[in-house]
């Protein structure tokens, strides 16, 4: 029997969130959010801290009851059909989830024993580089090791769908790379992955589909390429040593003309979107000279999800 035969409706999305609203006290954590996740994809829910990512994820995982709206995961209601749903999904919490005195391999073995057809524990331990910490109590593992263990716990039951909340927050580059490779391979083998992140590079590197959310609302959706293509394909980031005068963006905009847009990012930096040709660069240099500012860096690049976020919200995504 294949995976698609097992699913009740193969083309039905893995996750459907419709007009979800969640309020805690004065804070509207999720404000009419609607989004879908296709089967067999990696979907990133991207947004700054406090955007409502974790609340949305935890509603899908059945931890929270939707105050308004509707959530379906693998066609099931995460509240009413919880017992049927849970064996089919894997959950990686943002932190914790293991006894303080438990050893990494022991914990993983325990979670494996709750499933009917778990993955071989030694293979996962090896893949995630947890071998050296196998006998260390959980409380003495580094943050990165705890996260890799949490990821292993999420996938050991061979789920159809995995929810991972900030999988690489605070990890060193090596560990991030290992984690990304594993998530890639899960997708190739037919697992659907929903991940929250506030890292642009993570979403661009991994995701087939990105949902950008801010203040509990969906503000953009699409593949990383669709989202970053936009009108102009290039950007120039200008960083200077002394703060710009307040009139600088308008002045540079006038200098460069209609074909480019100039956006202030901070007191020290500007983002120029448009054709990054020698002519534009020459104009930017001449303008710096004329304003008496000293460029610290002038970076050419593709438009990133970070730029997209900035353009839509007028704020930086940075934590």
């Amino acid at each position: 029997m294949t995976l698609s035969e097992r699913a009740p409706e193969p083309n039905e999305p893995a996750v459907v969130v419709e007009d979800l609203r969640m309020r805690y006290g004065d804070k509207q954590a999720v404000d009419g959010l609607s989004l879908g996740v296709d089967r067999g994809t990696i979907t990133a829910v991207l947004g700054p801290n406090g955007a409502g990512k974790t609340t949305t994820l935890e509603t899908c995982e059945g931890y929270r009851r939707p105050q308004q709206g509707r959530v379906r995961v693998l066609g099931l209601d995460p509240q009413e059909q919880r017992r049927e749903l849970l064996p089919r999904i894997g959950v990686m919490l943002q932190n914790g989830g293991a006894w303080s005195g438990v050893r990494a391999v022991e914990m993983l073995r325990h979670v494996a024993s709750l499933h009917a057809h778990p993955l071989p524990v030694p293979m996962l331990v090896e893949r995630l580089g947890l071998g050296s910490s196998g006998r260390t109590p959980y409380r003495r593992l580094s943050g990165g090791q705890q996260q890799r263990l949490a990821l292993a716990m999420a996938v050991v039951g061979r789920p159809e769908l995995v929810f991972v909340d900030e999988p690489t927050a605070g990890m060193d580059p090596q560990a991030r790379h290992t984690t990304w490779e594993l998530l890639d391979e899960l997708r190739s083998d037919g697992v659907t992955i929903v991940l929250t992140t506030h890292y642009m590079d993570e979403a661009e590197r991994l995701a087939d589909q990105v949902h950008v959310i801010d203040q509990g609302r969906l503000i953009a959706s699409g593949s990383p390429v669709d989202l970053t293509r936009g009108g102009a394909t290039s950007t120039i980031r200008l960083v200077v040593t002394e703060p710009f005068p307040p009139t600088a963006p308008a002045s540079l905009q006038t200098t460069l003309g209609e074909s480019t847009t100039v956006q202030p990012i901070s007191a020290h930096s500007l983002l120029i979107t448009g054709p990054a040709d020698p002519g534009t660069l020459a104009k930017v240099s001449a303008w710096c000279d004329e304003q008496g500012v000293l460029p610290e860096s002038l970076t050419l690049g593709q438009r990133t999800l970070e730029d997209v976020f900035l353009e839509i919200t007028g704020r930086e995504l940075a934590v």
Partner: protein
Amino acid sequence: MSTSPTTGTAGATGTFAPRPGAAPLHRMVVAQARMETRLLLRNGEQLLLALVIPLIVLVGGIAAADHVGLKFSHSPVDTLTPGVLALAVMSTSFTSLAIATGFERRYGVLKRLGASPLPRSGLLAGKVGALLVVEVLQLVVIGAVALLLGWSPTLTAVGVLSAVAAVLLGTAAFASLGLFVAGALRAEATLAAANLIYLLLLAGGAVVFPVDSYGPAGGLLSLLPSAALGTAMRTAFLHGGFAAGAFLVLAAWTAVGTLLTARTFQWE
């Protein structure tokens, strides 16, 4: 709807190809009980609570009785041992359970297991299983030490069955109260409260010393779960009998503890 695909077919060939499913409930419960037993036994403070304090109370109580000339209707070791066994049950099913569960809440263990195939009833069954395993170990060790000190219990069928029933019902009563404390307070507050209540019940809860040795307050004390468990054990091993009143008190505490826990328990 079937969620158990066969192996080795097209579309399910990769290492991580989905093949979800919960283990059978009995296997999950046994796994949970084994895990919790290992963690309980690994913890040094638990050992202190589970064995060292009861043994000190037993040996110290006998020595003190001889020294001060405390008068019991039976020999000191025969009088004190059933109560010390009751104390051991109380330490595990109330104090150890409360502390462990409090920290499981704190560290997100309960939350994480809440997203696993293990249902809450299975988690509870696993916890009870772990408690019973630890209690059997305690009863064997303490019983052996008591026998070495000259304990000669009255062994009748009714008495032995009463003792087993008292341990089970006492565990239920104290575990429900322990979970109530752990589910309502923060982990540190649970740690403090569970130890404090244990010490207060040890000192004044008529668990080790018979209710009548507390004078006029004894009648009121016998409504405590500690006194009820102590009385049930003493009746079983001193007289080979069944203390119906004590069982009623334990049943009432179980009902109260279960109701409070069900109403107030916070999983996170």
